[in-house]
């Protein structure tokens, strides 16, 4: 498995897209800090970008890589290599290189602008952790989609759709249901609904740091318990891990059964 991981990883590292992705974050980081000069404000702006862009790139990249390396995968399948290690290795190669581009691309400018001296270090590391999780989750989701669809166009379509759904449409439906059922106690429901969407989950995780004062404005024992204590942080982290593990498990499981 490690060999395949290494191969995929180096393959991607050598490819142009990893560099483009890395450079994009590098420039973004520098520009934000150049314009603001305030690390904590830049963290807020970055959050908005990360929770939208990272899933999108993770999805597109995952699908693209899977379809591109399909012939190579089939070649590998003919060899005496375990299926789970082929797909798992490829997945980790993609997700790993994307995560590395993200962490290095954003990390370098922030460190140069005195991150270690500012009090935003915890917020920033939380941001990177969330970004890494989102990469892992959405790459896994896209691998699942690609595995299920032989047709490239269909696969791409579903991948973009799932991103669009989780990033925008889900929140719209969520909002509508909250407004329609506003006569009922909704605090448990709204927290649960947040848990079922990794993008919302990451957003909540970051809100816990940035907008805690606003979140505590709502009267509700469940909210208070969730946002006011460390429970929120633990729950969100746990759910993110679950969100990562489940698609990967399904990927490995499906790959074993699939008839190539």
């Amino acid at each position, binding site marked *: 498995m490690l060999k395949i991981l290494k191969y995929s990883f180096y393959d991607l590292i050598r490819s142009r897209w990893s560099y483009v992705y890395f450079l994009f974050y590098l420039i973004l980081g520098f520009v934000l800090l150049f314009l603001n000069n305030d690390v*904590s*404000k830049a963290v*807020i702006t970055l*959050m*908005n970008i990360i*929770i*939208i862009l990272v899933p999108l790139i993770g999805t597109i990249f995952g699908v693209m890589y899977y379809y591109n390396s399909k012939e190579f995968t089939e070649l590998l399948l003919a060899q005496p290599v375990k299926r789970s290690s082929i797909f798992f290795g490829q997945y980790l190669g993609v997700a790993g290189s994307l995560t590395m581009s993200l962490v290095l691309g954003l990390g370098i400018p922030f460190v140069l602008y005195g991150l270690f001296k500012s009090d935003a270090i915890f917020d920033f590391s939380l941001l990177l952790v969330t970004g890494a999780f989102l990469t892992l989750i959405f790459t896994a989701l896209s691998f699942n989609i690609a595995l299920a669809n032989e047709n490239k166009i269909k696969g791409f379509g579903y991948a973009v759709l799932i991103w669009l759904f989780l*990033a*925008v*449409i889900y*929140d*719209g439906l*969520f*909002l509508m249901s*909250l*407004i329609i059922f*506003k006569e009922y106690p*909704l*605090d448990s*429901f*709204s*927290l649960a*609904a*947040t848990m079922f969407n990794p993008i*919302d989950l990451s*957003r*909540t995780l*970051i*809100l816990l740091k*940035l*907008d*805690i*004062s*606003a*979140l*505590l*404005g*709502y*009267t*509700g024992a469940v909210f*208070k318990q969730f946002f006011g204590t460390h429970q929120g942080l633990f729950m969100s982290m746990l759910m993110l891990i679950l969100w990562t593990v489940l698609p990967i498990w399904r990927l490995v499981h499906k790959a074993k059964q699939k008839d190539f």
Partner: protein
Amino acid sequence: MFYSERVLVFMLLLWVKCLVGNTIPICANCDIRSIKEGITVASDFDTLLIKKGTYKEYNLLVNKPLTLLGENYPIVDGEDQGEIIRIVSDNVTIDGLFIINVGTSYTTDYAAIRVVESENFVIQNVVLEKLFFGIYLEKSKNGKVYHNKIIGDAIDEYNSGNGIQLWYSKNVEVEKNIVQHVRDGIYLEFSDNITIKNNTSTDNLRYGLHFMFSNDDVYSNNTFENNGAGVAVMFSKRIKMTGNTFKKNWGTAAFGVLLKEINDAEISGNTFEENTIGINIEGSNRIKYINNNFIKNGWAIKVLGACYTNSFSGNNFLYNSFDISYNSKLNDNVFDQNYWSEYTGYDLDKNGIGDVPYRPVKLFSYIVNKTPETIVLLRSLFMDIIDFSEKVSPVFTPDNLLDANPLMKPSK
């Protein structure tokens, strides 16, 4: 001739003596061993010099103009019996005492030091601990409460008292006091022309500062931090709040400042930082908000209704989750030349004022007012999209609520 001269000298001596007074030492080995005894033997304008030691006394009635001066903070222990010092005379000074264990009662407001219908009192350098009410001024005038430290241990609202309470008092200066862990840090009722300066009121159960029906008061350079419900000011006219800091008042009903029925006030140069709501305004008119800083609050300003002719200018709104929340479509308040960190306009003529007006009320804040649970969707992309569309063409938010001259740089 000779005789009358002697009388005159005697009279003069008596007068000087009256004015300056004797010093009566009180300590465990002195002639006078208790403060109560000291007060009884003292004549007007004497000083009771209370030396270091523990005095288990309560219900001390100061009924003549005396100075109670503590040396190295003698402890006056009330043993939870009731009130400790009651001042009923003019010109009394209390200085340098360490008063503990005021009795708790559900029917009487026992205080460590109570001033009743007196003038020209000074209470300074006093330390109060384990108290019910701290310093209680009742129908008193022209006094000074200076540099005291009040540290309570309040747990429940119903059996705790206030740190410094003024009731029907006038012309009092409350300065440089530290109040912590009581119910209301500083409480004023029916008290006019009071100056509250440089105090620190933190970690109180309910309000850091609470006043009602108190007009023409000045509050400046105080710090109110981490109080149960922040600061509440109600039913008062012509007050002035300048240079205060309101910080970290978190909770469902916590405010930096709650203004209710406040008219003709001036609120300037204050800092509101990390509160759930910076200022909550209800039924308050003709207030000038100038040069305040609103930093990282949940809501910088929440306007609930019946607020007319208020003006906001030169304020800095920095990184608040919501800048302004309105619950009606009517607006009679003016926003002009404020700095908004979320302003995205441009300044082509480089005069420091943005060329595009800024709309501080977001659609999302309107939605959160209607359905509070939607707060979990804060900063979601979907919300940004509908906020943007509302910004372009306001439907739900007051369309004349805008800052026509938003500043490009924070005002100093």
